């Protein structure tokens, strides 16, 4: 079965879309013995991430098993994870710099 998203490491709490996915879609990702289903709460574009499970404000977002930033607010499974709700302390440049409204 063709995968619509990719899980890069079993420790990750996000997966990345391999195509433009739609709100309401059911997506499964698997790696080794891990298999995670999620229903998307928003549209997720190719290359963008969605949460595999609920993530608490302040919790680390893990991709490649490593922290890419911290959650700026509570994130529910299936929600889009990006600059509006995830920021790195070290290299997190303020989102307003990029003119993004989120």
């Amino acid at each position, binding site marked *: 079965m063709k*995968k619509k998203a990719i899980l890069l490491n079993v420790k990750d709490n996000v997966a990345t879309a391999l195509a433009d996915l739609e709100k309401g879609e059911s997506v499964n990702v698997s790696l080794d013995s891990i298999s995670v289903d999620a229903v998307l709460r928003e549209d997720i574009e190719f*290359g963008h991430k969605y949460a595999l499970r609920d993530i608490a404000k302040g919790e680390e977002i893990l*991709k490649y098993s490593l922290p890419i*930033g911290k959650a700026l607010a509570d994130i529910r499974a299936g929600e889009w994870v*990006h600059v509006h709700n995830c920021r790195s302390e070290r290299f997190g440049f303020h989102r307003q710099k*990029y003119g993004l409204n989120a």
Partner: protein
Amino acid sequence: MGYLRPDGQIGIRNKVSIIYTTDCSRVVAQKLQTLFPVGTQVFGYPGGCALREGPFHKIVALGTHSSSAAALVVGLGCEGTDAYMVADEINKSGRSVEAIKINEQGGDLGTIEKGSRILVKLIQHASTAERAKMTPADLIVGQECGGSDATSGLASNPITGVAADLLIEAGGTYMHAEAVELLGCADILAKRAVNEQVAREVKELIEEAERRCFERGRFSWGYGNIMGGLTSIEEKSYGCLSKSGTRPLQGVLRRYALPPGKGYYLQVGEPESGFFHGDPEGINQFAAHCAHIGLFTTGCGATTGGLIPVIKIIANPRRMQLIADHADFDATPVIRGEKTIQEMGEELYAEILAVAAGKLTKSEIFGHYEA
């Protein structure tokens, strides 16, 4: 079967190197290569008017590369990068090498005549090179990424990481470079280091790269990355780091020479260029560290090669259609959700072994020996 060199190295290709030591002798060197195109390669140091340690060592390293059977060094005669000096250094490896100077041969024509006769001798000599069995443990591979896009961190780089692990497990050696693309990776690489000294070195290297970026207020990061889905510089860096596999970091390579042992290394580019370079240059720096093969992952697609065979890996389906002629490894099945990274990593490893055994890459077939 590889080619056994007097210094014990085993090469996967067999070429006579025509080396120019300054811009002024470059034309003659290139003309000689055109006259004798089979089994020769040309490279050199156009800025050779001045004698600089780094570039001098680089052309000596390339002249004593495992695929270089013999060498003809062509100089003008007045430059600091003296042709006889270069030849002497190459000769220490036991290779047959000769040097000629344009201002001793009465100009280009005299040099082409004398150089041609030398090449005939060297090319025939190279063709009698002793053969030796090669195993993956003898292989050194360098990985460069260029024109990266979302598919690089999702597919191409992780795939090369799997291949890297397989090569290292088989006793081989693997390297990559570009500390400026590894911002935020200091701690994770230090943890993988084999000892305290290497941990310190890699930390210092990446922290230095970070410092420079903060000072300049410029990072390898922009709106395009964010629109493409990357949320932080760390995410981008980890996508880049995924090319390194999971094996311990043996050391940081600086001086052009054979790596001190087998395994995974981080290579540092030339300080003069601010540690930034174009892609063929990156490949050729790996060659100067004795890499047999270069892996080049690209999102945008590129046609270039380098002095060594380059396996070009593309994962972007749209780009693959446009540049298919130049692609060696189609990584698009991962992006299309049809194959796993692990599966494709194993396929890439098999491709590396095939190229080592003689399969020509597109860069070789198209004559893209950028140097």
